[in-house]
């Protein structure tokens, strides 16, 4: 089995961003057999959790394929201007979380996912009103 390791780093040590901030970071891959990696997808996205079914929105998406002559072992930098909505929210039954997610597609249909979470905005956690 070909183990794939994804090392990801966000440049901002405090994982709280404001709308309109620039999010920057980098990732690199390590694998026993780099040729088995078919593609890498990097997304900056939000997704919901809680009582409802999951909603997801992708703000930034980038797919890298080996035929582009890329070296997956080298550090790859990314940056995107963060949007104004939706803001991170720790609601009672609706929660919205942001993350940078790397998905590595390996030969044979296997996928490896790594994500780094961050907060967008400073919305306070609500309390239920009876």
């Amino acid at each position, binding site marked *: 089995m070909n183990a794939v390791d*994804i090392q990801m780093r966000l440049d901002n040590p405090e994982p709280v961003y*404001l*709308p*309109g901030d620039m999010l920057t970071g980098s990732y690199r891959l390590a694998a026993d057999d780099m040729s088995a990696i078919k593609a890498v*997808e990097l*997304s900056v*996205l939000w997704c*919901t959790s*809680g*009582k*409802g*079914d*999951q*909603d*997801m*929105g*992708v703000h930034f*998406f980038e*797919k890298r394929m080996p035929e582009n002559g890329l070296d997956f072992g080298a550090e790859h930098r990314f940056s995107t201007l963060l*949007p*104004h*909505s*939706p*803001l991170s*929210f720790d*609601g*009672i*039954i*609706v929660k*919205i979380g942001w993350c940078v*997610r790397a*998905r590595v*597609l390996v030969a044979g*249909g*296997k*996928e*490896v*996912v*790594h*994500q780094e979470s961050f907060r967008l*905005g*400073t*919305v*306070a956690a*609500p*309390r*239920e*009103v009876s």
Partner: protein
Amino acid sequence: MSADQSEPWQSGCAAAFCAVGALVASGFLVFMVWALIIPEWRANNVFIESSCVILAKRLAESSGEDGPTYRPEFLIRYAADGKIHELWTYDAVAVYTGSRRSQQEILDQFAVGQQYRCWYDPDDPGRAVLVRGYSWLMYLFGLIPLLLLVFLLVGLRHFWFQFGKTPEMMAALTRPAGGPDAGLGDSLSYVPDLDLRYGAGNRLTFRLASDRAPAWNLLGAVGFTLFWNGLVSVFVSFAASGFLRGQPDVCLTVFLVPFVVVGAGLLMVCLWQVVMIIGCRPPIVELSAQPLTPTETCRLYVAVHGPLRVRQLRVLVICEEIARPSKLDSPTIKKRIHQAEVCTEDGSLEYQGDFQIPAGAMHSFKARHNEVQWHVAVSGTAVRWLDVTWNFPFVVRPSGRARTLR
């Protein structure tokens, strides 16, 4: 770090299922065109009129799993292409039906030895029909595979689009455009648009629209009531006819009681909807500004008008989380996370007050299954016991960057 195994075969299998189903439905449609539509169209438009003599007639019978089926057949003699032809025929498509009586009636309309018009195929004079026309009922049945084909093709397109794509790629390809520009371009995604159906208010800048559509509610209630009571009335008529014959079916009557009670309840719901539309028209709710942002103060105007007097009136500004599980048996869940009373009953028909969106409050958010909704709730009691509530959603945007319209 987490690893998971995606299952792209699921959308692939679904696409394959849709493709096979679409092929079967297409085959059925092609067969229908070949066996029904083309023969009837040719008989109506290409066949040449002639005259024939009926030499014999019979009721043809075909036995199947569901019992025998019938169709009329006539032995006719006619001249075509310089030759005399004899054949058993009736119409262009030899369809058997289950009703013996109706087919016998057709048979009785034609007398042996009499002369009638007939139509023969110029490409094959040995083929002829005694009647022309279209089998519209059969075409209606043909709509079923047609609708199935459309449904399967839509499914095929959907699953084929998904095939081989990750959830993130799917979301990136289907992401919506942002809301109306408030100085932010398309960066305010998933914040609902301003509802400007009612446009400007009389007292304040914006008039809000209620999230309820009483006319549609009434239409839905009337439709369902008609369907339910129509179905129940069939069985009630069976039970009633038993009583009239002096042979009452007690079991059926007892069985029908809860269904009749539900039907009566549905009629009451319809009546309630009519009372709501005529007696308790939605109040007028106006805001001084929209969209709002946290820390912003806004003026609110509410006017209630009858004809039924609404008492114990309360006007609240509410923020609710709304979660919609997709399972059919799971109801929508709501949790109230902010509530501020703006004004209460003081005997007048008009109310004004100010409210503020708290600092750090969540903005309006709307996705497919999850929502954060801000609204003005006007509630009260009509004719002493009817509780009525109207909700008037408005938009709160993230603070700092949005330009508020005043």
